[in-house]
């Protein structure tokens, strides 16, 4: 067991337990906090995968913005400070069954694929990836179009969110 494997197992266990707590917690703010722990665990995985830029982007975008947005939304949409009643609807056994079936299906597909147990190839240029990513996002023959479409999507989302959630003046 190398150190990386131990770190992977510990962080994976923490992240999965936090993920299960997100979907089963009765208090919605606690759900949001468990979500933050899950997102932080996923950020550690990005570091293990030599994608450090994504780790910090995960913290900035997900934990620093989206999680705070969730906490705000939970606080703005509750009449009292406590939660009442059960948090799952009555078909929870069916949901669990579907999730298990999906996991079994994915596992079946993957075990029949010969690249499944591959070890990571050696990555020579670890530090030049940032420049390469930036260049690929603005080169017309690389990924400029998805980049521009994503920015149009963000502007549309921003305008839509401001309009939908804004108070209508009487």
């Amino acid at each position, binding site marked *: 067991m190398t150190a990386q*494997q131990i770190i992977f197992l510990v962080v*994976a266990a923490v*992240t*999965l337990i936090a*993920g299960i707590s*997100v*979907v089963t917690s009765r208090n*919605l703010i606690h759900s*949001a906090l468990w*979500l933050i722990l*899950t997102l932080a665990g*996923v950020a550690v995985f*990005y570091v293990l*995968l030599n*994608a450090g*830029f*994504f780790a910090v*982007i995960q913290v900035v975008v997900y934990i620093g913005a989206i999680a705070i*947005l*969730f906490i705000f939304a939970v606080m*703005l*949409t509750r009449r009292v400070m406590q939660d009442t009643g*059960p*948090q*799952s609807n009555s078909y*929870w056994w*069916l*949901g*669990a069954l*579907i*999730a*298990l079936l*999906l*996991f079994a299906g994915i596992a079946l597909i*993957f075990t029949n694929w010969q*690249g*499944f*147990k*591959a070890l*990571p*190839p050696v*990555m020579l240029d670890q530090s030049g*990836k940032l420049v*390469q*990513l930036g260049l690929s*996002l603005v080169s017309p023959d690389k*990924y400029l179009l*998805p*980049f521009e*479409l*994503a*920015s149009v999507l*963000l502007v*549309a*989302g921003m305008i*839509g*969110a*401001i309009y*939908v*959630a804004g108070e209508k003046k009487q």
Partner: protein
Amino acid sequence: MIPLSWYLTFAAILFCIGLYGVLVRKNAIAILMSIELMLNSVIINLISFWRYRAPEGISGQAFAIVVFAVAAAEVSVGLALIISIYRRRKSVVAEDMNLMKW
């Protein structure tokens, strides 16, 4: 060395946990949180495939950046809709938003 199977299995488990949350939770905001779990597992998959199959290229990372942007936009619009519905109907339980059911 960590084989690819560990990352893919982890992402699959996270995806199924998110799927369970989407199908089972009553509160609309909790459903959105579960969708975020699913999107996170997708991005983990993308980055691990990039690392293990084509680390010299950059397509995996560019794809993941676009998915990040889409996730952020989707969360903001979804939460805006939920707040707007809460103002009208005073409830965020997903079963109560049934005006367009047949």
